[in-house]
């Protein structure tokens, strides 16, 4: 195949056979109880240097409690998949956890240029859909995927994409390397202890993330019985055999919203977003991450049940968010 142009950015090398071997050797074929606490899940499954993806973001049905736990544990040198994300990438970089960032969209501010200028962060450029297409290829066990966007941009030379002559039509087409993260964290509405999970409403790429990743940690608002899945199997978003850990995390997306369950906390969202835009997330991390030992303690000491009940009341729309 003739290569017409190619990006010079580093990218996580696709290895579909390596991925298959990983699945063969590591993923359980039976129903195994994977329920564990956030500390154990992050300790066991997130390693320094991992390629790290999360679905949705810190403000919208994202795994916010697990992102805080990653920062609390001081993980290092993560390569972060920055698709559709506001502040989580900034928190991970300013928390010293991330040294590489694939950018689709990230919450910007002085932190980003500063981290690059100081040599703390390498950035590679994509777009949101380009990254979710890379995950789609990874989720299909393929080495690459063709896409009819991204060509001609200045992101292209700073990416792992290639422009080739399509061997079938002879026309130029962009190829993207498949993306198989080492680890993904995904927040869901409901899961059982084995990892069967339901997501209601829209999402970004929760299914693609789960299927494409070597290690998958779910946090869930609610633990339900396996029989519930058998009663309505079409509503299973993620099957148990791709999942490695299930963390029961009510209000796990806080300060973000979980559609149909609770609204976001606007004051907290503004505090976090404002800290990012002003280039100072230290105070935020101290207050909400380092000075508490767990998500539960943060909810108790920093938020309080009165506020949490108010967030539930403010989420008035229920239609479509249950079976």
């Amino acid at each position, binding site marked *: 195949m003739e290569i017409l142009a190619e990006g010079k950015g580093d990218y996580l090398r696709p290895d579909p056979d390596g991925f298959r071997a990983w699945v063969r050797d590591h993923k359980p074929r039976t129903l195994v109880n994977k329920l564990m606490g956030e500390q154990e899940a992050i300790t066991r499954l997130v390693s320094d240097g991992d390629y790290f993806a999360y679905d*949705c973001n810190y*403000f*919208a*049905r994202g795994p916010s409690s697990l992102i805080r736990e990653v920062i609390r544990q001081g993980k290092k040198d993560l390569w972060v998949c920055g*698709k*559709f994300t*506001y502040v989580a990438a900034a928190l991970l970089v300013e928390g010293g956890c991330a040294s590489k960032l694939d*950018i*689709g*969209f*990230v919450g*910007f501010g002085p932190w*980003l*240029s*500063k981290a*690059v*200028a*100081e040599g703390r962060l390498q950035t590679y*450029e*994509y*777009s*949101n*859909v*380009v990254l*979710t*297409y890379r995950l*789609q290829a990874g989720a299909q066990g393929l080495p690459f995927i063709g*896409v*009819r*966007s*991204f*060509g*001609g*941009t*200045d*992101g292209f030379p*700073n990416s792992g994409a290639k*422009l080739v002559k399509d061997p079938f039509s002879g*026309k*130029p087409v*962009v190829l993207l390397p498949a993306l198989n993260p080492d680890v993904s964290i995904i927040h869901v509405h409901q899961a059982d202890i084995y990892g069967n999970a339901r997501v209601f*409403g*829209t*999402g*970004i*790429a*929760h*299914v693609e993330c789960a299927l494409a990743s070597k290690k998958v940690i779910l946090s869930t608002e609610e633990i339900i019985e396996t029989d519930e899945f058998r009663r309505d199997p079409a509503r299973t978003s993620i099957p148990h055999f791709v999942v490695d850990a299930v963390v029961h995390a009510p209000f796990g997306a806080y300060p973000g*919203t979980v*559609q*149909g369950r609770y*609204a*976001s906390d*606007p004051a907290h*969202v*503004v505090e976090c*977003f404002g800290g990012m835009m002003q280039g100072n997330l230290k105070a935020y991390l101290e207050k909400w991450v380092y000075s508490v030992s767990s998500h539960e303690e943060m909810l108790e000491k920093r938020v309080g049940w009165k506020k949490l009940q108010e967030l539930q009341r403010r*989420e008035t*729309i229920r239609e*479509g968010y249950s079976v």
Partner: protein
Amino acid sequence: MTPATHFAEREHLICTTARMIEENKSYWVGGGGEPLYTILLAQRLYTPGVQYLTEDGVVSPKALLPWDPLMTMVASRAGYRALQWGTMNTAGNFAQLGYVDIGILNTLQVDKFGNVNSTVLGPYAGGRGRRFGGPGGADTIAAQCWRTILLTDQQKRKFVERVDFISSPGFLEGPGAREAAGLPAGTGPWRVVTPWAMFGYEEKSCELMPMAVSPFVTVDMVLAEMSFTPKMAPQLKTLDPPTEEELTVIRSSLDVEGQTTGRGQWVELRDGKYMLAETQGRE
């Protein structure tokens, strides 16, 4: 339809764009701010059946405003009573298949070929420039919708000969460049709308060209807020001012707190002439 006498220049931008929206076309709009307000205003007043898509795969919602800060997507009020809830890849697929006629986008910087920069002002390498968030969904919108409408402010630093970084493609380097880069045939930029003017593209050269100016500015004022001298259409039209009905919708149910429209200058009708409130003293 009563012409308004007092309005914000960004309200004018929203109204101008809303009137360009057609009932029998499909739209992909940025999840918040002006792009969303244009389609919602059109839905309320002109094209009640018009369908739109957002980046999180929401198809034709009945958006329930107002929203909490930053709750533009993957939030229940934004996706309320949609016809379908998908994901980012389903949205991308629809556009790649040709189902989306027009994308409406904000941009930080635009150049004479309609290229969009949302990545960096200044140099990219080494973190020396002022960094922004990246293309997000805009690259897909700009590459794959049949046409795009870009919204931005009329400022010299935003209209440049060549953007500092092409985050999302316009006509790239000119005629034929999109196809050579692997983008779908027959697609590309269509309009740029600012509070002061509306631009199209000259068909042959693919270059940005003013088509109409707002009633409260002169052509020279618009040209003074561009870093390059554009080709000129033989005749420039004057855009209509907002109507009171449009402003009522914007102020009572779209941008109630003025978070978007509150920035920018105020326009007044004075002695039968629209003018920027700020410039009155000087004339």
